[in-house]
């Protein structure tokens, strides 16, 4: 639960939306019929279809919270463990693939892949420096600037990019260079 709250605090969902909507070029999106709605929207719809099925079949364990996320659909109203169930449903393809939004319709591999991708992106968004781009985080990459020390890095006590560390403990073995230990140095 804590994870979800913090991911929200760090606006990781914005990262996921940005990435999904910038991952495919417009001509390809058109071929995939992905311009209206966007890739992030159709992915949200995918999660909503699974959540709705879970709710309709009475598999939801916790009460729904429709105000959890403003503008959110059925998936957003689920508590964490029920959301994981919805994702698991998709992962196991236990729903009618015919009724899904493009490009997920009848595309089991993409659905399964996306369940990993969403998890990965959440984790990467949370534990990389992304949030620290602050007010510039949704700009194109060349315009982003680090505004503070990344919160995810504080959480795991990662010191951030380094010039080096002095943890040198010697060698287990020396490399048997055929042309002598120092050949590279001599040549350059």
């Amino acid at each position: 639960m804590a994870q979800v709250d913090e991911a929200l605090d760090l606006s990781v969902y914005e990262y996921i939306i940005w990435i999904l909507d910038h991952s495919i070029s417009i001509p390809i999106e058109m071929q995939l019929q992905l311009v209206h709605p966007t890739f992030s929207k159709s992915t949200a719809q995918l999660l909503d279809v699974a959540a709705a099925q879970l709710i309709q079949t009475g598999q939801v364990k916790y009460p729904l919270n429709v105000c959890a996320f403003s503008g959110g659909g059925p998936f957003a109203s689920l508590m964490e463990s029920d959301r994981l169930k919805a994702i698991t449903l998709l992962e196991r393809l236990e729903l009618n693939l015919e009724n899904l939004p493009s490009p997920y319709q009848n595309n089991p591999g993409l659905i399964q892949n996306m369940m990993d991708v969403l998890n990965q992106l959440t984790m990467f968004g949370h534990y990389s420096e992304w949030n620290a781009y602050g007010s510039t985080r949704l700009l194109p990459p060349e315009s982003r600037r680090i505004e503070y020390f990344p919160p995810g890095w504080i959480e795991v006590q990662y010191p951030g990019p380094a010039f080096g560390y002095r943890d040198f403990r010697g060698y287990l073995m020396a490399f048997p260079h055929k042309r002598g230990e120092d050949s590279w140095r001599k040549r350059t």
Partner: protein
Amino acid sequence: MAKEDVIVIGSGGGGAVIAKELGEMGLKVLVLEAGPWYGNKKWQNPNLQPGAKISSTFDDLDVSLYKQLVNKYEQNMNDLVSGRFRWGPADRSRSQWFRNIKQKGMIWQSSGVGGTTQVYTANCPRAFPMAVDHVWPLSYLELIPYYEKVEDTLPVNFAPTTAKEELFYYGAKKAGWHLIPTLDVTVPGFRPQPNAILPPNNNILNPHVRLEELSWMEGCTLAGHCVNGCPHGPSMDKIAKRSTNVSYVPLALKTSNVTIRPNAFVLKIVTDIDSSEGLRAIGVVIRDTWTGEKEELQAKVVVMAAGSIESPRLWMNSGLPHNPWVGKGLVNHYMDWLTGIFAEKELMPILGSSDVNPFVGHTCGARLDYPGLGTLQTVGMSPGLTASFFGMSESGYDFLTSSMTKGRLYGDELKEVMTNYRRTLSVLVSTDDEVDPQNGITLDPLISDEHGSVPVVAYKPTKRSKRKRSELVKIAVDILYKAGAKKIIWSNWPAGNMIHMESTMRMGFVVDENCESYDVKRLYIADNSVHYNSLGGPNPTLTTQALATRTAEKLFNKYF
């Protein structure tokens, strides 16, 4: 139209090597690279502006510019969609180039001068002799002098020991494994990673030399950013991690015979029919990735080094003769990922410190090799990448909690593991993966981009590969427990995680033993795709580079 001696397509693991070798032989070589060039004065803002067209002198290389661009921030560098090291055009406001992958997994590849070696961890083991001898169309003995030349040129050394290697060696010894002090591995055992990283500077432990000063001196500073891009060194050709953009590319430029053109995507191999040679390559059509302009360029010989996905894609998009093995037989070392979490008090007596600090030292400094099964390697990454690796699993979420978790991490458990990030040691499993013609690259019949039909990438492990991977997982688990791990996370990675793609243009099927294609004369291949198999599990690049060195000789002798 000026005619080159040789056009090389791609400047990554293999392309940069063959360009340097041919340049040293006196041939005029033009390297065409789809992505940007970092650290060249002619491209001050390589991700924002087109810059110049070509560069052909060593003096254009600029280490200060490189350090400014390769800034070690993991999202900025490694994000697969918008990172500097992605598979996409130089202009990062545009999307990555599309590949259709209809299964769980990710394709990790980088465009740009240096190709995927910009992001690689520089591990340079040789193939297992048993995977080559009496299997490949050439013998292991024949490869050795070429291995030696590449090892000397990069150069390759054994990784120094930092905490994570020390912990791995400790666990491996307790688990009953022995040190194998060799480059030619015939028996199982552990050893320091042979890798293309310069040894630490003698001042690494000298407190009077500040670490920032050290990062401008020659040698590895143990900064641990190998995957985020290593910018440490006094000049471009002496950067610690020996990606080809800092090893072979500077040497190629020093020959004064090699010209490199980034931002040039090759769309097509151009052929004609010669009365004595038959069908042969005579040039290429390129597309400038900034302007969209197309151009035809000619050469006496064309070398494809576009990687295991793009080389077969280019073959097929060029309408070259049908060969049933083009694109087929993809192997990817069917990988898996395990992480041990350690307690402070267990670490103290082994390491003399309470943390492992996975972000310190070479990303992959230690390994265990097992001919017949594959390999294990220690891996320490920055936190975002580390966490994202816990998000991928063939088995979804594990709703159980015990001393071993199998599957994807979430919620409190993810949080607990990441809070213990500094006390984790991760192990990558790399399987001796079997060639299966069902796996590989085909063209998408429906979807195309500005470079032609996009590739569809498909991979499913064989039964034997699955069995081998689970044997290796058991060994990794044993070593981590013996080293004192109190808990292990077994990710059970999806089969489609593509980091070591090989064998899609196999020697003996698509190319002959000199890497010239059977169907099209004067067309050679010098990337991972020509490997006959997965080398037994060891990382692929050194073998590609040894073969590229050999191919340069063969090509020169035949046509010049």
